[in-house]
């Protein structure tokens, strides 16, 4: 029985529904365990003058009060650039930056001690906004460029041009389980760290550096996370390092669990962007040239900002061919917690920009944005309908097509960074989705509705996604997996992939069961553990299953070959029956093993591995996988960064109250190409969940800061993530039948991040709705399109009209 392709319930399903699943703070306290918390900087930017911890030390139950100089190893760290401090030693760069670390036996003592720490700072001028950072030239890293063609000239000779700026907001991860770690001290300076992290190897290296031991003395274990979404890729390391510091210095177990408010206030978020663009296009809406300058708000340190910016730049084309293009990018340094990875990793910000531009082109030309999108799509390599038509139809009726040779059209496959778009399923999606979602008919209804209705507005838009799969940093595209077979025939697998609900463990179990021809129940996944899998990549970039599944399959392949050889030589080798030993003929299926030439002569997998063990055959294997062919040169902005693309599109419709600005999403139709899904149930869950998260980002999730840089929206009472009331009443999710993705494991496609970008269709629908009220003017709309912003836009049109009629 094959398990790949089946709806196997989530690996942790029973534990989750029964409350038995253990998250970090569910681990029972160990003897002598200490609770940790920190006192942070009262200023967003300030120089530390003095710290008085004497009184705090005196609080009963307090065991340690630590400052930067107590750190035995380095205080400096960072995933890319070592510009972060565990504890502020000189200048604090964001409000709440940890200065004093406190460990106590109980929560009351901790609270009391926090109050008694006295910090004196000399405030320095802070920078919070992208505009202020640009004015002050406060940047992190160099400006990057991806370019092709003579953009200035092409824009100059374009029939139409548009320019403008788009502000795209950040997003709080709001994983339900806040950052958490427990550290147990071991012998000779070693520590065991339980961390809610997407990147155990990173936690390992930072903990090691902070406590001043080699990497091999730090073991990091992650059983699962209560959500990650990118927020635990690099930023799980700080709490783990704090607990490790306490455990090392006190020789007692130490636990740190941020409360939700602190987690929201003091950890990084999705990068806000501000981008300035200038676009040239022809009367059909086809883009002739695009120049765009992205600025992201990186917060106070580099963290992953450069890679996030890079992915934003690499996704500024989204699904569209841009013949002449210049995309620049620069990370702004501000006095906010360092912004970090968030599902989509810059991709959504890049895509929001081009989709905004497309909407504006459509409004300017008075066309339906679907038409504009269609004529800008990348071609599809094998059966390019445009090429086919040109060859077949020498009369070339279509104006636009006649202007181009087949060669020129076939070159509509090259991305600005030089990678050729292969197996593009978007033209097919653009055929199917408008039909299944009744696009044309609804467009007419919407137009009529908006003409007649004074109090409400409707809008609709279809936006696609072409999401590049692979880490753009080549090194990270590797994984190892350990597969151990025990003599009862059961198997334990460990990989570097961490489980945050996305189902990587379930999919790897399915793959291993199939590869070894045993039952799914005979395979279990161990917690992700740096002493089993070393130098692992973060579980990120949607690639958790692609990489770790492939590594596990590699291990299984070698185990199976070894067992087949053993079986052929020792078990099924039957000279008398005239059957020569032949490993190729050994079959593994349904927990049974046999020689295909003698199907009636079978033994169980358990019997085989028992015999193999007795005959001293190695029953463990380590698999490895490195994604072939991917590479990208960030200096030149050229390369082949992605193994393949995951495609999809969404049509969203919204209804707006003209008097209050209240917006409701009334219908969403999604169509995605996920190849051959490994676990359709879980994969669909990723699509729906990702879309909803994107919907929140573009509509209600607004980060609001006070003038001193303090985040005011730091709990679900003030920060609005989607709940059941925000779901579209009609929500159709369909998947394209496609098994062409030969480059990936089991012809599947990664789906962790791509559906989030489809949320942008809702924002585009709002912009579309506003265009009916603005009467030909291009409505200016920032992202998220909160009710307040919608109302302000609507009011401005009303004012204009009142002014006109007066």
């Amino acid at each position, binding site marked *: 029985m094959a398990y790949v392709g089946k709806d196997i319930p989530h690996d942790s399903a029973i534990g989750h529904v029964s409350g038995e699943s253990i998250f970090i703070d569910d681990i029972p306290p160990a003897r002598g365990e200490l609770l940790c918390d920190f006192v942070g900087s009262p200023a967003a930017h300030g120089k530390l003058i003095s710290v008085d911890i004497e009184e705090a030390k005196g609080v009963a139950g307090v065991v340690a009060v630590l400052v930067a100089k107590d750190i035995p190893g380095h205080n400096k760290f960072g995933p890319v650039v070592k510009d972060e401090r565990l504890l502020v030693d000189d200048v604090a760069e964001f409000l709440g930056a940890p200065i004093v670390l406190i460990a106590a036996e109980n929560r009351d003592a901790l609270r009391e001690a926090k109050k008694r720490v006295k910090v004196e700072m000399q405030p320095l001028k802070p920078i919070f906004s992208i505009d202020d950072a640009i004015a002050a030239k406060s940047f992190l890293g160099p400006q990057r460029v991806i370019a092709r063609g003579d953009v200035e000239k092409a824009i100059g000779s374009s029939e139409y041009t548009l320019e403008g700026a788009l502000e795209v907001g950040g997003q709080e991860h709001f994983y339900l*389980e806040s950052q958490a770690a427990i550290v147990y001290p071991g012998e000779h300076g070693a520590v065991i760290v339980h961390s809610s992290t997407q990147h155990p190897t990173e936690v390992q290296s930072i903990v090691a550096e902070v406590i001043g031991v080699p990497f091999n003395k730090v073991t990091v274990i992650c059983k699962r996370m209560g959500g990650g979404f990118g927020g635990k890729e690099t930023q799980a390391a700080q709490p783990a390092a704090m607990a490790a510091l306490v455990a090392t210095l006190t020789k007692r177990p130490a636990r740190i669990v941020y409360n939700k408010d602190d987690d929201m206030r003091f950890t990084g978020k999705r990068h806000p962007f501000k981008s300035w663009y200038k676009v040239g296009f022809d009367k059909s809406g086809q883009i002739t040239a695009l120049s765009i300058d992205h600025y992201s708000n990186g917060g106070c340190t580099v963290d992953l900002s450069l890679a996030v910016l890079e992915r934003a730049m690499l996704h500024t084309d989204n699904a569209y061919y841009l013949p002449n293009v210049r995309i620049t990018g620069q990370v702004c340094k501000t006095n906010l917690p360092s912004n970090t990875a968030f599902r989509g990793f810059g991709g959504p910000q890049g895509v929001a920009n081009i989709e905004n531009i497309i909407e504006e082109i459509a409004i300017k030309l008075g066309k339906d944005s679907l038409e504009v999108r269609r004529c800008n799509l990348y071609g599809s390599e094998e059966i390019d309908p445009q090429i086919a038509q040109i060859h077949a139809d020498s009369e070339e009726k279509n104006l636009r097509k006649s202007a181009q040779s087949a060669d020129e059209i076939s070159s509509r496959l090259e991305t600005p960074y030089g990678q050729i778009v292969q197996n593009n399923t978007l033209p097919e999606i653009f055929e199917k989705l408008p039909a299944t979602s009744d696009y044309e008919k609804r467009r007419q209804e919407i137009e009529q509705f908006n003409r007649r209705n004074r109090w409400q507005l409707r809008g609709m838009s279809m936006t696609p996604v072409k999401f590049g799969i692979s880490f753009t940093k080549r090194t990270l595209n590797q994984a190892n997996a350990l597969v151990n077979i025990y003599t009862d025939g059961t198997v334990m697998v460990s990989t570097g992939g961490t489980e945050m609900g996305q189902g990587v463990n379930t999919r790897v179990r399915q793959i291993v069961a199939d590869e070894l021809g045993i039952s799914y129940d005979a395979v279990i996944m161990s917690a992700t553990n740096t002493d089993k899998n070393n130098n692992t990549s973060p579980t990120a970039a949607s690639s958790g299953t692609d990489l770790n599944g492939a590594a596990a399959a590699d291990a299984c392949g070698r185990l199976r070959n070894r067992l087949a050889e053993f079986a052929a030589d020792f078990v099924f080798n039957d000279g008398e029956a005239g059957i020569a030993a032949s490993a190729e003929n050994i079959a593994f299926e349904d927990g049974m093993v046999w020689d295909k030439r003698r199907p009636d002569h079978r033994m169980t997998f358990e019997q085989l591995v028992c015999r193999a063990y007795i005959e001293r055959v190695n029953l463990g294997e380590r698999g490895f996988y490195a994604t072939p062919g991917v590479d990208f040169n960030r200096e030149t902005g050229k390369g082949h960064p992605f193994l393949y693309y995951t495609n999809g599109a969404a049509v969203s419709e919204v209804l707006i109250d003209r008097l209050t600005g209240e917006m409701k999403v009334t219908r969403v139709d999604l169509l995605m190409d996920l190849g051959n899904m490994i676990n359709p149930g879980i994969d669909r869950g990723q699509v729906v969940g990702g879309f909803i998260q994107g919907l929140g980002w573009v509509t209600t999730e607004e980060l609001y800061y006070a003038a001193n840089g303090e985040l005011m929206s730091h709990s679900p009472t003030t920060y609005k993530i989607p709940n059941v009331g925000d779901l579209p009443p009609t929500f159709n999710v369909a998947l394209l039948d496609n098994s062409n993705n030969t480059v990936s494991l089991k012809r599947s496609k990664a789906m962790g991040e791509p559906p989030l970008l489809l949320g942008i269709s809702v924002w585009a629908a709002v912009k579309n709705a506003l265009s009916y009220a603005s009467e030909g003017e291009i409505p200016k709309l920032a992202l998220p399109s909160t009710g307040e912003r919608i109302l302000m836009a609507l009011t401005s049109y009303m004012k204009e009209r009142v002014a006109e009629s007066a």
Partner: protein
Amino acid sequence: MSTSSSNRGISRRGFLKGAGVTAAGAAIGESAVVAFAEESAPKGPKIVGPKPLSVSLKVNGAEKSAAIEPRTTLAEALRVNLDMTGTKIVCDRGACSACTVWIDGTPVNSCMTLAIDAQGKDIRTIEGLAMGDTLHPVQEQFIEHDAMQCGFCTPGMIMSCAALLEHNKNPSLDDVKTATSGNLCRCGTYPKVFDATLAAAKMMKA
């Protein structure tokens, strides 16, 4: 603690004070609370705390007791004092429903309920929803419909959905939406939660 009815009155006052202490943080120290307690003691009902007192709670049919401070929420008491960590705390202020448990059959946010107020009542948590090895139909259908991803909202979500089915054998989709309207799920499992709950309702009727 003797009768539950008189206790309720006291502890509501206690709750207000407790909330004041947490919110005001540095401003009001422990001494302020004691002073207030002493001053109002002769007039009003008996003031308890702030020192721990012995509290007994009936959780999933079993009597359990622990020494806890009166300001302790039920969520904290369950997780910290009674080692029942199935109930999750996220926002700790009644805005996410991750901490949902039943009190006398009604779903409540246990982070907004004082443990002492739950004395003498029937508390049911996620750990007590299954009958031995037999999962509650809602639990079963959550598995069947992949109605969970990371699982952190799941205990609260299931307690909300199962409570609905205890009271309403024929829920509509809207009923399920209303029942889960306070439950936040960042993984976005909502549509699957609806499917699972409606399927469980069918199963319970059959």
